[in-house]
C-alpha cells in the first residue's frame, strides 16, 4: 500500500525563497499543513500560558508575598485559564484531528479544505485578539489591560460598572471569534468522517481515534453554540444597554453561569475524548493486541457524549439551587463515571495478556491511566453535592481539574507527540530526551498537583493573590511551586527534543512502530495527496491484515 512520493516539506526545499515558503504555509488548504499550523500555534500559546502559571506559582510560594500586585495576579490566572483551554488544548487537539482523521480513513483531505483554513485563521485571530489586549486595551481609555475577570467571567463582574475599559471586550471577542473557528472545524470533521471514508471502511471499522473525534466534533457543535450566544448577550449588555446579566436591572447573574457551564462541562469532554482517542490507538500498538471491546468503547464514548450534556450544573452546587436540582446533577455526574470507568477497564483489558513495550509514547499512556483514575475519583467526590460545598472553589478543585487537564490531557498529548511525530516529520523523537522529559514531568506533576489538593482541604480558596500565615498553607504552596518549576524544565526538554530531532533525529520510515492503521501505510511525512491509490480495507486493522495474511482480523470481527 505504500506509494511513490513527492515530498512537500516547506523547510526542506532550499532553493525556494523564504517568502514563497511562507506564502505556501499561509495560503495552504492541505489538512496536514493546517494540522501542523494548529499544533505549532498551540505550542506557542502553551509557552505563554506556562509563563503565566509560573508567575502565579512564584507569587503563592509563601504567605504575604509581593512578587506581583493583585491586579497583575488576577490577569495572570484569567489569561492562564483562557489561554490553556481555548488557545492550547482546543487547537492542539484540532490539529491532531485535522492531521490524522483523513489519513486514518484513507481520504486525501478534509471535506471542506477552504473552510478548514478559514477555521484555523479565525482561531489564530482569536488568540491574537486575547493577547493584543495587553497593548490595545491599555491604549484606549479606561482601566486595566489584559482581562481580569477569571476564565468563566461570571456576571456581573463583567458588567461595565465593575469592568470598565476594554479588557473584558477583548476576552469576549477572542472567545467569540475562536468559537466560530471551532464550529467550522467541527462541521468539517463530521462531514469528513461521514462522507470521505475509503472503500470498505464501514463505521464499524473506523479506527477508534476517528470515532472519538466524530463524537468530539458533535459535542463542539452543541457546546460552543451557547458560549457564543452568551458572548453576544454580554456584548449587548456592555454596548447596547441590555440587561441579560445585569442583576440590578432585573437580569440574572445565574443565567450567565448556566450558559457558561452548559458549554464548560461538555468542553471538558471535548478535550478529553480526543485524548481517549490517543490512548485507544497507542496502547494497543505497544501492547501488541487489538483494542479490547471495540464496540463497547464506541458505545461508552457516545454515552459520555450524551450524559455529559446533562451534568453542567455540578459546577454550580454552591449557587443555591434547590435540593432536587442538586440531587439531579449529582446522579448525572456520578453516572458519567460509569462509561469512563468502562474505558479505563478496556485499556487495562488491552494490556492484559499483551507484550507491553515501554517506549516513550507508552510511558505517557501509562502515566495517563494512573492519573486519570485519580482525577476521576476526585471527580466522584465533588459529584457528591454536599462534599462539593466544601471542595468547590477551593484549591482541591484546582488540583482536580489540573489532574484531568495536565495529568490526563497533556500526558495523552505528549504520548501523541512521541507517537505521530515520526509520521509528521519523518524523524524519530529522541528516546533518551523523551525519557528525561517523561520522568521530570511526572515528578514535577505529582509534586505540584498531588500536594495541591491539601490546601483546598485546609480551606484555601482559589484565585487569591495572597494568603494569611498560620493557616497551614505555606509549606504546601512552596512544594506546589517547586513542582511547577520542575514541570517547566521538563517542557523545555520536550521543546528541545522537538527542535533537535527535526534536524538530527533518526529516519523514521513509513511504519516505525509496526502499527496497524492506514496513516502508517503511506510515507513519512505523507505526500500532499496522502495515498497514491485510495486504499481498500476489510477490517479495523488494515495493516495487520497485510502483515498477517494467514490470520486477518476480518475473520474475528
Amino acid at each position, binding site marked *: 500500500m505504500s506509494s511513490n512520493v513527492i515530498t512537500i516539506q516547506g523547510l526542506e526545499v532550499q532553493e525556494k525563497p523564504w517568502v514563497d515558503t511562507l506564502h505556501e504555509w499561509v495560503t495552504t488548504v492541505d489538512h496536514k499543513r493546517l494540522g501542523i499550523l494548529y499544533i505549532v500555534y498551540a505550542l506557542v500559546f502553551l509557552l505563554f500560558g506556562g509563563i503565566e502559571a509560573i508567575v502565579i506559582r512564584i507569587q503563592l510560594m509563601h504567605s504575604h508575598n509581593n512578587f506581583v500586585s*493583585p491586579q497583575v495576579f*488576577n490577569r495572570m490566572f484569567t489569561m492562564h485559564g483562557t489561554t490553556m483551554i481555548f488557545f492550547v488544548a482546543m487547537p492542539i487537539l484540532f490539529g491532531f484531528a485535522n492531521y490524522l482523521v483523513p489519513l486514518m480513513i484513507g481520504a486525501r483531505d478534509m471535506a471542506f479544505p477552504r473552510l478548514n483554513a478559514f477555521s484555523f485563521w479565525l482561531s489564530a485571530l482569536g488568540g491574537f485578539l486575547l493577547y493584543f489586549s495587553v497593548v490595545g486595551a491599555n491604549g484606549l481609555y479606561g482601566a486595566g489591560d489584559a482581562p*481580569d475577570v477569571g476564565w468563566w467571567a*461570571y*456576571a*456581573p*463582574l463583567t458588567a461595565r460598572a465593575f469592568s470598565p475599559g476594554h479588557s473584558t471586550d477583548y476576552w469576549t471577542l477572542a472567545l467569540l471569534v475562536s468559537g466560530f473557528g471551532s464550529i467550522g472545524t467541527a462541521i468539517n470533521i463530521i462531514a469528513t468522517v461521514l462522507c470521505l471514508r475509503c472503500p470498505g471502511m464501514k463505521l464499524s471499522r473506523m479506527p477508534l481515534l476517528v470515532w472519538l473525534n466524530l463524537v468530539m466534533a458533535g459535542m463542539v457543535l452543541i457546546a460552543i453554540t451557547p458560549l457564543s450566544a452568551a458572548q453576544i448577550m454580554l456584548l449587548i449588555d456592555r454596548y447596547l444597554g441590555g440587561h441579560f446579566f445585569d*442583576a*440590578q436591572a432585573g437580569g440574572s*447573574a*445565574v443565567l450567565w453561569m448556566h450558559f457558561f457551564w452548559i458549554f464548560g462541562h461538555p468542553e471538558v469532554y471535548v478535550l478529553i475524548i480526543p485524548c481517549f482517542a490517543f490512548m485507544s490507538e497507542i496502547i494497543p500498538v505497544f501492547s*501488541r*493486541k*487489538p483494542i479490547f*471491546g471495540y464496540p*463497547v468503547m464506541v458505545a461508552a464514548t457516545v454515552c459520555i457524549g450524551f450524559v455529559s450534556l446533562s451534568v453542567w450544573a455540578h459546577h454550580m452546587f*454552591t*449557587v443555591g439551587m*434547590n435540593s432536587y436540582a*442538586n*440531587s439531579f446533577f*449529582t446522579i448525572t455526574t*456520578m453516572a458519567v463515571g*460509569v462509561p469512563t470507568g*468502562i474505558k*479505563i477497564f478496556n485499556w487495562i483489558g488491552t494490556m492484559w*495478556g*499483551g*507484550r*507491553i513495550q*515501554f517506549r516513550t509514547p507508552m510511558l505517557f499512556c501509562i502515566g495517563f491511566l*494512573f492519573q486519570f483514575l*485519580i482525577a476521576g475519583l*476526585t471527580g*466522584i*467526590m465533588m459529584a457528591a*453535592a*454536599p*462534599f462539593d*460545598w*466544601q471542595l*468547590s472553589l*477551593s484549591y482541591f478543585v484546582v488540583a482536580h481539574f489540573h489532574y484531568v487537564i495536565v495529568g490526563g490531557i497533556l500526558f495523552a498529548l505528549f504520548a501523541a507527540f512521541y507517537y505521530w511525530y515520526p509520521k509528521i516529520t519523518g524523524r524519530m523523537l529522541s528516546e533518551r530526551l523523551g525519557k528525561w522529559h517523561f520522568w521530570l514531568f511526572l515528578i514535577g506533576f505529582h509534586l505540584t*498537583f*498531588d*500536594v495541591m489538593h*491539601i490546601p483546598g*482541604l*485546609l*480551606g484555601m*480558596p482559589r*484565585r*487569591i*493573590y*495572597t494568603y*494569611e500565615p*498560620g*493557616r*497551614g498553607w505555606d509549606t504546601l504552596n512552596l512544594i506546589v511551586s517547586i513542582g511547577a518549576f520542575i514541570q517547566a524544565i521538563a517542557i523545555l526538554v520536550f521543546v528541545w527534543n522537538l527542535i533537535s530531532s527535526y534536524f538530527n533525529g533518526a529516519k523514521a520510515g513509513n511504519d516505525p512502530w509496526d502499527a496497524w492503521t492506514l496513516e502508517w501505510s503511506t510515507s513519512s511525512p505523507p505526500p500532499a495527496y496522502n495515498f497514491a491509490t485510495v486504499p481498500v480495507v476489510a477490517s479495523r486493522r488494515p495493516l495487520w491484515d497485510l502483515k498477517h495474511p494467514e490470520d486477518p482480523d476480518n475473520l474475528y*470481527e
Partner: protein
Amino acid sequence: MFALSSVLLPPRSLAEPSHSLTSIFSPESTPAKSIFDLSIFVLSITGIIFVVVFTLLVYSIFKFRANYANADREPAQVYGSNQIEMAWTIIPILIVVVLFLATARVIHAIQDAPEPAGAVQVTAIGHQYWWEFRYPKLGIVTANELHVPVSDPSHPTPTFLRLLSADTDHSFWIPELAGKTDLIPNHPNRMWMDPYHTGIFLGQCAQYCGTQHAKMLLRVSVDSPQDFAAWVRGQQQLAVQDPSVMTGRQVFEHTACINCHTVSGTPADGRFGPDLTHLMSRTTIAAGAAENTPENLRLWIQNPDGIKPGSLMPAMKLSDADVDAVVNYMKTLR
C-alpha cells in the same frame, strides 16, 4: 496515589504546627459534620476503587511487559468479552446508586432543614471586598465579624443566614461550620449553622469577586448565650457621644467619610462602607486584612492601598492633625 493517601490522612498532621483553623475535616457544626460523615463514606468507596484498579494496572504492567523471550512474536489477539464488559458495567452502576442515595440524603438534610422558632436570623450582604451583617429581629448592623450563639443540642439555637450581594458574586465559607454558599445579586440564598463550641472560626470569600477577593476575610465569633446577649445589648446602643473627641467627630462629619459610613445617632448614615457605630468591638479592620489598632486605623485612613491595594476605600488625604483626631474619635466608638 500520593493524592489519595494524602486525602485519607488527617490533614492536620501535614499542616504547620500552628494547625489550620479552616480544615474541612474538623467539623464544629451540624452541616459541616454531615458533610464530613458523607465525605468519609465517599472517600472509603473511592479509596477501595482506587486500590482495586491501581492493583490491576500495576499487575498488568509488570506481568505483561515484553521481554527477550517473547518480543519476536505477537501475543494472542483477543478482541473482547461480553461477560467481562457486563461485569465492569453493572458493578459501577451499583456503586453509583449507593453513592447517590447516601448523597441525596445529606443534600436533603442540610438544604431542607426547617428553621426552628429560636433561630437567630442574620442577613449577610457581600460587598466588594467586605461583609455586612444585619440582624433584622435584633436591630443590629455590623461588618466582617459575625457573632452567633453556641447551639446546645438539647436547646438548639442555630443561626440562619440570608445571603445577598450588593455588587458581584461572593461566597460565604467557614469550613469548620458549613459548606460554602454563594452570595449573588438578585438571587437570595440561605444557609445555616449550629456551632457546637464557643470560639473564633475563620473563613473567607470563596467566589472571585474582583481585585481584593483575597483579603475579603471572615471571622465568626461563637459566643456563650450570656456573651451573645451582652454583645447584642452593646450593639443595640447608639454610638457613644464623647465630648473629648468632638474635633475628630467634626472632621469625620465634614468630609466624605459619611457618604459611605454610618455612625448611628449622628448625621453619618452612608451605606456603601461598613457601619462604624461599634468599630472598637471588632478585632480587625478592612475585612480582616489588618488588626484593629490605632496605628492600622491611621494607615488605613491615609492610604488604604498600603493594607489592601485595590480596595474601594479612597485615601482621605487629611492633614496629620485631622487624621489623629479622626482616629481618636474612632477609638471611642465602642
